[in-house]
């Protein structure tokens, strides 16, 4: 078996030797460079665009909305975001003019020489202002839905009755989370070419080639075969290259079409941080009803996220956040009301966890506060309410697979030495300037698209055998550092009983690979990997049916059979399309049913110290235990968890987007504080395996999971250390000072 072993990653050698080519490494003859001129006001009307005479504009290719050959919208869920603002400005980084020139060094001066005259309108900058409708900035129609991109209500049982019971205590508090920047190593970048014969071709850093493809078709009013999208080696995504690359690809292609030359657009860090998507800020009000023994009998949750200026993916982010907001508990009565609202900041978008880290933060902090107020053990409180096999989630989904979250929690607590440490810290803290705390969070994360999402996507994967017996996986799922190439090759290798070295993964190119869906939602290994497996089985079956091969006959026999088949038929390919399993059902109207085919389950424990002289908070130790079905590649899986935990630590106590008039004011790594290795604690990763029928060899999704737990675990540890109730992240030393000085 290759699955379960730490075989070297497929493209690892190229990456460590520097041979891997990222988009900025690619140069075409006679290529131009492009830049974007953006609005500076958060909201208003464009009155005029001035081009200063100091620049020889005839040397430049200049594009405004007027030059767009097709439709001026980014085709996603709705068609509200323009590629270039024409008359209306809805956020301060709105692209208005594009410039290209062969010498990239003169572009910056030219960019500064363009002035966009805007008649400013009062902006809406916070969730509160948007809900209060101080200005209507989206969906003006005199309906209650003004400023609201999407609204969901989930109801299970009878919440009002639960809250009216005589034997329960009621709790209520509001929690908030901030924006977060993905900070992939490689900034967004694209190269585009255009010719009348071939249409538009783009190369670039992206997660979802077919999203880009879909977005460019209406922009250029071209047919499917006249837009080609190729993913180049990609230096991280974390959701930040899910929807945004479509916009950048469109810009590069518009310039390329007008210039008649290839155009490269690479954002620098400043522009990437300021203009591209970030995690949605959120507010969550949690009300709970708890019996004196700790039975969680009612949860009433109001969850709001800030979508920024355009709808983009906010409805889907909201959906995941909504479904995860009631946590891994079998609460019989639940109501969740959720809204995504419009503001005049750049659109917030996909980011690892996709709404779940926000609402899970609120609930896991809340339950700790409940335990403290009721003098209950927070461990016992969680265990009492964990969902067990056969019980239901907030959407009334029955958990059919075996689950033992209490065992996962016990494992994490034991590894963290939780009981002893808690006792020791409580004894030592009163006499110490440095206070220590230990806290935890328990949670689940659904793998794959939400609800009917996978059914709608109907992803397709292919495998192709070559005459030398090598097998190529054909999928649009991208390698973005997380290990797609490696796990696909492992899956095929074990499925066909062929050596790992005989399996290749094709570069995602919409001309050559089918649409296996976006590389998001912890779906690649589990959902797409399962399709890879069934396509591989189909391919083998073709050879078996031809009478030339039998499973396990070895590489030589396989190669001989392939050569014979290809000589006769020209090629050997097999495709597999997603079919919703018969017992997975989802009702989109009521928001009830099987929200996800399966879940990963986790318990994370954080240890912190707080220096009361400086209010500096450090995360000193971390244990991440999770049940993930099957560990396909131990090093990659641990890497996913460690990276997610580090990102979660940043989310909790370091990374703060400072907003000024809707803009990120600290868009440099000097002032947007991502933790470094010096700030990261030892992270111990523990896996339980409970194979799921939904993934290849039992695997479930894990990519997003580790983002959910760190923030509540760390804040719970701070709460324990100082006997305070911090309710908002990022929680910085300044916030801690304000809390303890009160």
């Amino acid at each position: 078996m290759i699955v379960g072993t730490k075989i070297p990653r497929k493209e690892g050698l190229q990456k460590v030797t520097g041979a891997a080519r990222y988009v900025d490494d690619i140069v075409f003859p006679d290529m131009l460079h492009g830049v974007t001129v953006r609005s500076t006001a958060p909201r208003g009307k464009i009155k005029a665009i001035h081009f200063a005479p100091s620049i020889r504009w005839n040397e430049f290719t200049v594009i405004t909305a007027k030059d767009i050959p097709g439709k001026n919208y980014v085709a996603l869920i709705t068609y509200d975001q323009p590629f270039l603002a024409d008359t209306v400005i809805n956020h301060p980084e709105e692209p208005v003019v594009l410039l290209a020139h062969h010498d990239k060094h003169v572009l910056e001066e030219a960019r500064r020489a363009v002035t966009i005259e805007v008649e400013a309108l009062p902006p809406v900058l916070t969730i509160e202002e948007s809900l209060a409708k101080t200005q209507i900035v989206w969906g003006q129609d005199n309906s209650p839905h003004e400023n609201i991109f999407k609204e969901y209500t989930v109801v299970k049982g009878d919440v009002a009755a639960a809250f009216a019971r005589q034997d329960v205590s009621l709790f209520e508090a509001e929690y908030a989370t901030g924006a977060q920047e993905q900070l992939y190593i490689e900034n967004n970048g694209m190269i585009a070419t255009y010719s009348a014969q071939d249409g538009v071709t783009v190369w670039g850093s992206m997660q979802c080639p077919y999203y880009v493809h879909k977005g460019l078709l209406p922009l250029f009013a071209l047919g499917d075969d006249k837009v080609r999208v190729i993913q180049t080696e990609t230096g991280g995504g974390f959701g930040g290259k899910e929807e945004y690359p479509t916009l950048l690809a469109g810009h590069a292609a518009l310039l390329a079409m007008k210039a008649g030359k290839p155009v490269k657009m690479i954002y620098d860090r400043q522009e990437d941080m300021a203009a591209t998507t970030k995690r949605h800020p959120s507010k969550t009000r949690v009300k709970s009803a708890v019996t004196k023994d700790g039975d969680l009998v009612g949860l009433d949750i109001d969850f709001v996220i800030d979508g920024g200026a355009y709808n983009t993916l906010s409805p889907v982010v909201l959906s995941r956040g909504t479904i995860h907001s009631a946590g891994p508990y079998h609460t019989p009565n639940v109501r969740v009301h959720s809204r995504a609202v419009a503001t005049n900041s750049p659109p917030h978008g996909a980011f690892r966890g996709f709404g779940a880290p926000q609402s899970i933060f609120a609930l896991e902090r809340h339950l700790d506060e409940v335990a403290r107020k009721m003098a209950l053990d927070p461990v016992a409180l969680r265990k009492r309410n964990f969902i067990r096999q056969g019980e239901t989630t907030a959407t009334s989904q029955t958990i059919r697979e075996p689950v033992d979250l209490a065992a996962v929690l016990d494992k994490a607590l034991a590894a963290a030495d939780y009981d002893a440490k808690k006792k020791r810290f409580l004894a030592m803290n009163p006499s110490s300037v440095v206070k220590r705390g230990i806290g935890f969070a328990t949670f689940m994360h659904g793998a794959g698209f939400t609800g009917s999402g996978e059914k709608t996507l109907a992803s397709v994967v292919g495998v192709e055998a070559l005459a030398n017996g090598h097998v190529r996986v054909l999928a649009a799922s991208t390698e973005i550092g997380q290990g797609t190439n490696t796990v696909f090759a492992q899956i095929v290798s074990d499925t066909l009983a062929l050596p790992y070295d005989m399996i290749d993964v094709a570069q995602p190119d919409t001309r050559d690979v089918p649409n296996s869906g976006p590389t998001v939602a912890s779906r690649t290994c589990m959902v797409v990997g399962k399709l890879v497996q069934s396509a591989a089985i189909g391919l083998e079956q073709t050879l078996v049916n031809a009478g030339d091969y039998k499973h396990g006959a070895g590489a030589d026999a396989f190669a001989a059979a392939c050569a014979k088949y290809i000589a006769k038929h020209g090629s050997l390919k097999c495709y597999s399309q997603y079919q919703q399993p018969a017992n997975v059902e989802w009702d989109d109207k009521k928001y009830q049913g099987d929200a996800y085919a399966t879940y990963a389950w986790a318990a994370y424990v954080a240890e912190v110290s707080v220096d009361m002289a400086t209010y500096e908070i450090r995360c000193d130790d971390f244990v991440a235990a999770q049940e993930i079905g099957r560990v396909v590649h131990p090093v990659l899986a641990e890497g996913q968890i460690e990276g997610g935990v580090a990102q979660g630590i940043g989310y909790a106590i370091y990374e703060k987007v400072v907003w000024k008039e809707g803009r990120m004011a600290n868009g440099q790594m000097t002032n947007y504080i991502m933790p470094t290795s010096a700030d990261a604690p030892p992270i111990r990763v523990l896996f339980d395996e409970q194979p799921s029928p939904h993934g290849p060899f039992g695997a479930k999704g894990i990519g997003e999971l580790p983002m959910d737990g760190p923030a509540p675990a760390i804040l719970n540890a701070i709460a324990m250390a100082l006997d305070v109730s911090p309710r908002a992240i990022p929680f910085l030393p300044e916030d801690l000072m304000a809390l303890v000085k009160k």
Partner: protein
Amino acid sequence: MRANVSKYELVTPASLADALKLCAGGHKPFAGGTDLMVLFESGKLPPGRYVSLWGLSELRGITADDAHITLGALTTYSDVRVNAVIAKEHPNLCAAAKETGALAIQNRGTLGGNIANASPAADSPPALLVAGAEIELRSLAGTRWVAYDGFHTGYKQTLMQAGELITRVRIPRASDRVSYYRKVGTRKAQAISKVCVAASAKVKAGVLSDLRIALGSVGPVPLRCKHTEAVLVTRVIDAQAIKEARDAVQKDIAPIDDIRSTREYRLTVAQNLVAELALRFVAS
């Protein structure tokens, strides 16, 4: 990169004398470039002519005589970190070097650049103020030594005149002193200070004398806290003394709200750290 490279000239002179000539003609000094390249990358470095100091051996080296330890302006943080004399007599300066950026910056960033760059948030200045440093300034017109205390005359302003280079820094030899250095940055490394404190004193029977406290990031320039020092010397450090010192800190510093922190945080932490250092000193 937001700068137009073709609008910059960087000249490498053969000697200090040549460098001074170039400076007299308006070339601006470029040492390790760790401050300048950040400006260059973001398009904020004024286009023009620069002179690279990096190859000038006259500006390197750390020497000690009976009265002083003298450091060339090009002394890097890595040079400071491993210098045994400085480590023994002015450990604050080593601590500052160790807390600056991370290794790459420590190999390339210079003491002269840190001083000339005149950021109120720089990490060496508090240590230099406490050490009683003097700065050698040289131009075609001549050479002069100025006290470092008073060198920074306002936000990003110094006594340095057009055509002048910082050539050396010297600090008096010291013995029998206790030291305290603490940088409160936004993270463990690669961080800009929110508050930075250096102090040293003589201690006898629980009483402090010749106490020097300097703070960074709490005003337009790195500054000595003379009111606070006066409150804490030649007396018993009790609760009353600490309270008075906290009040005095408020008189000595002028912190502001900015993108990294708040006025209130900086003031409170400065007060807390002054209390911490006073108690540590008398306990030593």
